[in-house]
């Protein structure tokens, strides 16, 4: 493979991997602190997507995409916070299975609401022309959409890292993911930490929605299913409960997906998912705690 091919591969892989890393991180944050796999996370992606549809396609087609995008992320954050307040806080002290079932229930509820109140069929989402425009550097051809996805995911990861490592609240969040009770014993308010975690998770879901739906071009009630599944698998591979693990897992799955695209002969390309999951199974067979020794071996 020549240099050009490698660079092309890297850009695609980093672009998809970055997206998957953000997906996984949003899920891992909630799991790390609350021990809750928030299956309604996919629906936050869906809600952001429908926001883009309603706002940018139905109501204000002339509105600049950047405004629609920001609105989608804001709605995602608000939805995530609302979700926590209404659905999860009342059952916070209950059995972990109760929380899990609650997240399924919310997921089902939101999907069906979308079917009822908007449409069961896919709806188009307007994306800026520049997403499909290409940038040429020598022999390299990259879509601006992919480039933006790559840069945005790196930027978000960078901002989050700075927040987590250089602010007290960020340390508190990491501490809560490590030992929530001890963090409360130090006086950090549980509600504050959980709200921040859900807000960040919502923000990540919103950004994911921008680029994920950008790849599909349409939004439908179950659009959140694949992202949450990928997020979950990436978190498990990287080490459930570990934030770094989620990011590593995300990039790994992204890289593997692109690699399989290139490597698999075209006849078996539609088995790509199967091969991918096969790899995941292999990794977990030899390293069930995930690649970075996630904090929760038993809980799996």
């Amino acid at each position, binding site marked *: 493979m020549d240099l050009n091919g490698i660079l092309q591969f890297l850009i695609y892989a980093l672009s998809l991997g970055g997206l998957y890393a953000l997906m996984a991180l949003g899920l891992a944050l909630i799991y790390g602190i609350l021990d809750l796999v928030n299956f309604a996370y996919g629906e936050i992606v869906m809600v952001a997507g429908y926001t883009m549809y309603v706002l940018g396609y139905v109501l204000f087609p002339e509105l600049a995409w950047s405004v629609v995008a920001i609105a989608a992320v804001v709605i995602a954050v608000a939805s995530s916070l609302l979700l926590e307040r209404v659905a999860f806080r009342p059952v916070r002290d209950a059995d972990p299975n109760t929380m899990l079932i609650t997240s399924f229930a919310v997921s089902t509820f939101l999907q069906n609401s979308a079917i009822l109140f908007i449409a069961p069929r896919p709806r188009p989402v307007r994306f800026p022309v520049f997403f499909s425009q290409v940038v040429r550097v020598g022999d390299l051809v990259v879509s601006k959409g992919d480039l933006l996805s790559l840069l945005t995911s790196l930027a978000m990861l960078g901002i989050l890292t700075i927040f987590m490592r250089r602010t007290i609240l960020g340390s508190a969040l990491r501490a809560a993911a*490590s*030992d929530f009770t*001890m963090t409360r*014993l*130090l006086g*950090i*308010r549980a509600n504050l930490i959980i709200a921040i975690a859900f807000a960040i998770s919502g923000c990540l879901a919103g950004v994911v929605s921008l680029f994920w739906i950008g790849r599909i071009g349409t939004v439908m009630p179950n659009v959140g299913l694949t992202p949450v599944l990928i997020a979950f698998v990436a978190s498990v591979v990287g080490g459930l409960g570990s934030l770094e693990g989620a990011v590593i897992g995300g990039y790994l799955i992204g890289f593997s997906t692109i690699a399989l695209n290139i490597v698999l002969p075209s006849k078996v390309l539609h088995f790509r998912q199967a091969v991918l999951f096969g790899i995941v199974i292999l990794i977990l067979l030899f390293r069930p705690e995930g690649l970075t020794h996630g904090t929760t071996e038993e809980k799996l």
Partner: protein
Amino acid sequence: MLVLDNIYAGYDAIEALHGVSIRVERGEIVALVGPNGAGKSSTLMTIAGVLKPRDGTITFKGESIVGLPPEDIIRKSIALVPEGRRILSGLTVEENLRLGAAIHRSNPTQVQRDLEEMCTRFPILGERLNQLGVTLSGGEQQQLAIARALMSRPSLLMLDEPSLGLAPQLVEGIFELVRQLRKSGVTILLVEQNVERTLEIADRAYLLSKGQIVFEGPAKELRQRVDVISAYLRGAR
């Protein structure tokens, strides 16, 4: 200063404390000893707000604190050094210490001063500020856990088995530290399995067994009650 009156508390179906009453006066070192499973940790966890009592009252400096969550208890200047230290993984020594002062984060100069003071008092911690807390040795982690609790400037410090798992010479250091802390004006409630050394430094002692107080009085007195000690603390040194 601290008064527990007839506390009943437990975990789900299992009741750990059956009518526990304890008193800690300002400036004292009070020991809470007893065999495994007696309810010593449960007592501290109840005071700290992690465990909610089913019945009974807890007052601190005249104010009722029963039922308050842990976030409020530490703001009443009661700090807990929990069993097993519970150093926050993924965080450096410095981050652990700074989180210990989280309730004072609106006063960064004071926090900085306290951090420096901890480094003077515990030189090992000063050397390892940028190391991950969990990479410290057992004895160093215990120092970190205590220093972290002290960062909140407590008037009552509760320690849950600080000598557990430590080599004998380190155990000495812990007890010496407890003595010094009392000298600096901190009231101490000490839970320990190492009965001998604990009773040497404590003023008063409570012996807990199966969730009930079976002895209370001056530590000196309990030390002499070999009958009581051997009955309840068989095998404990």
